[in-house]
């Protein structure tokens, strides 16, 4: 069968401009597809760090907008399998002004525990000590430091909005997170926040982070925490960290369906375009097909060669599109929120891209090829095209 491939390949050079355009359109759609898959992947399948699989987030059952009493922490800590627990409260606030480039997540937390719950965040021992021992200190991620040009010892001001208090912080530690998102964060002392609050708002935290001793304990701990506070006046909802993050994505609407429908529209459109091109290209060749059959080529061989030709073109487009996707992924680095290290193209993308390109190649040529290869030889030889 392989000996027919060079011939099929040469047929693609017949009309170079048309072939290039087909390759380009397949490439662009595969690029789009690959990027969409990467986005989808970033939302739903991102390979978490091993620690991520050990973590849970406890929040108010009603909504994230409602807080939890800080004394829940002691009771959660007593559960079997809980290795560490600490609070995290979303401060919100304004740094410099409210333009999006000055936005980044800021959390009030417990400086003694935060780096125990997130062991993948690397911090030097002396900076950790400096951060822990000063009430108004802040620890920031490395990418955040780079982006805003922040240095150790620098003072910054956060204007409160959710909390009616302004914070003056001194950067005492710069840590290194494992992925873009955990590296783009500021942590400061919860005690410092509490001091500035009116009496009635003290004693509450936004969420608790739990580090479990083993991934197997995670579902059980989640159940036990929620059971424990079922009859309290503030009930909890405990999820794995992954599920917790996804609940944010869910707030964006049905992203899954949206991405999937764009993907299918892209693939379907390119299928129509390629089918049309292939039909055109084959129609011009009916007479040659008659000649091939006169030489002894069977209908099946002719069919296979036309499909092979189309698959070659589509696969080249697939390879080009997929390679472009990697370039785009790298190019997005630092420009898109949540993707400071670039859009990671997951390893399934080449496989999916090539598989889709293959299917485009086959499906777009099968009908024209079937028709052309079944024209009787005498009609084909008489064909003017």
């Amino acid at each position, binding site marked *: 069968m392989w*000996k*027919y491939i060079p*011939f099929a390949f*040469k*047929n693609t*050079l*017949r009309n170079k401009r048309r072939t290039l355009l087909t390759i380009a359109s397949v490439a662009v759609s595969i690029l789009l597809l690959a990027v969409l898959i990467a986005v989808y992947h970033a939302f739903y399948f991102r390979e978490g760090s091993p620690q991520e699989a050990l973590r849970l987030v406890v929040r108010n059952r009603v909504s994230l907008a409602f807080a939890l009493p800080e004394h829940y922490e002691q009771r959660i800590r007593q559960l079997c399998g809980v290795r560490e627990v600490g609070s995290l409260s979303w401060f919100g606030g304004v740094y410099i002004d409210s333009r999006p480039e000055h936005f980044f997540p800021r959390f009030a937390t417990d400086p003694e525990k935060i780096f125990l719950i997130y062991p993948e965040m690397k911090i030097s021992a002396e900076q950790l000590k400096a951060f822990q021992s000063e009430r108004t200190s802040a620890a920031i991620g490395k990418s955040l430091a780079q982006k805003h040009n922040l240095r150790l010892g620098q003072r910054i001001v956060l204007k409160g909005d959710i909390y009616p208090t302004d914070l003056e912080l001194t950067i005492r530690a710069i840590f290194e997170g494992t992925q873009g998102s955990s590296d783009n964060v500021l942590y400061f002392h919860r005690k410092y926040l509490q001091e500035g609050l009116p009496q009635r708002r003290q004693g509450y935290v936004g969420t608790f982070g739990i580090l479990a001793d083993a991934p197997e304990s995670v579902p059980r701990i989640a159940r036990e925490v929620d059971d424990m506070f079922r009859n309290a006046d503030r009930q909890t909802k405990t999820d794995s960290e992954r599920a917790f993050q996804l609940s944010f994505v869910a707030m964006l609407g049905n992203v899954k369906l949206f991405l999937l429908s764009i993907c299918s529209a892209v693939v379907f459109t390119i299928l129509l375009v390629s089918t049309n091109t292939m039909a055109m290209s084959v129609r011009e060749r009916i*007479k*040659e097909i008659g*000649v*091939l*059959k*006169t*030489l*002894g*080529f*069977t*209908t*099946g*061989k002719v069919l296979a060669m036309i499909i092979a030709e189309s698959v070659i073109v589509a696969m080249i487009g697939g390879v080009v599109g997929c390679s472009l996707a990697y370039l785009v992924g790298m190019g997005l680095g630092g420009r898109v929120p949540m993707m400071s290290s670039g859009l990671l193209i997951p390893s399934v993308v080449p496989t999916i891209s090539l598989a889709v390109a293959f299917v485009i190649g086959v499906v777009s040529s099968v009908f024209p090829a079937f028709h052309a290869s079944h024209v*009787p*030889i*005498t009609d084909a*030889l008489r064909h003017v095209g």
Partner: protein
Amino acid sequence: MDNHTVIETIDLRKEYKRDEFHVIALQKANLLIQQSEFVALMGPSGSGKSTLLYLIAAIDRPSQGRVRVLGQDLQELSDKAIAQWRNENIGFVFQTFNLIPVLTARENVELPLLLTGLSKKQRIEHAQTALKLVGLEDRMSHYPRQLSGGQEQRVAIARAIVTDPALILADEPTGDLDAHSAHEILTILARLNKEQNKTVVMVTHDPHAARFAGKIRYLEKGELLPEGSSPPI
């Protein structure tokens, strides 16, 4: 029918029926051609010459009657078997050359060999030999558009003989050529007939071309005139 009979057609008939119209392209065609004969088929346009040639080459199937070629009853073969049979036994030359434009002369000639079990090296050797036979050893890597009409037709002949078929069928092979190129082509066909014992059946309008043949058969209005008939006016 003896061992030397290459083509035998019995009461061959071909009709074309489509919707309203109904054409009898060929009828009562009884043709007998022996090994190493060079036969010219002549007749006015539309008299059924191509039709007869296509039936002999099993490119088309008759409406009635039988065709035996090289001892093979053609209607016994399936479409797939016929393709292989044609590849092995028939070399077909067209009026319009019909080379594949994206392939070089050598690749065009190699094409029928793809269907055989030959290795790449053997295929190239065979193709080169065939091209030498038609005097084109220096044009192997030329594309059809880089060749003259006469050269293209020589490549087409090389493609027709590369599988060493016993029977060469040519449908107006000189119809698109100037007198000089036509003469070259006819000389090659005559040589293949004489030196390699190929049986040649050639459709032509040209009396000069027909003179290269040992025998001329005439068709008129779909009927094959008896052997020895004088040409229809």
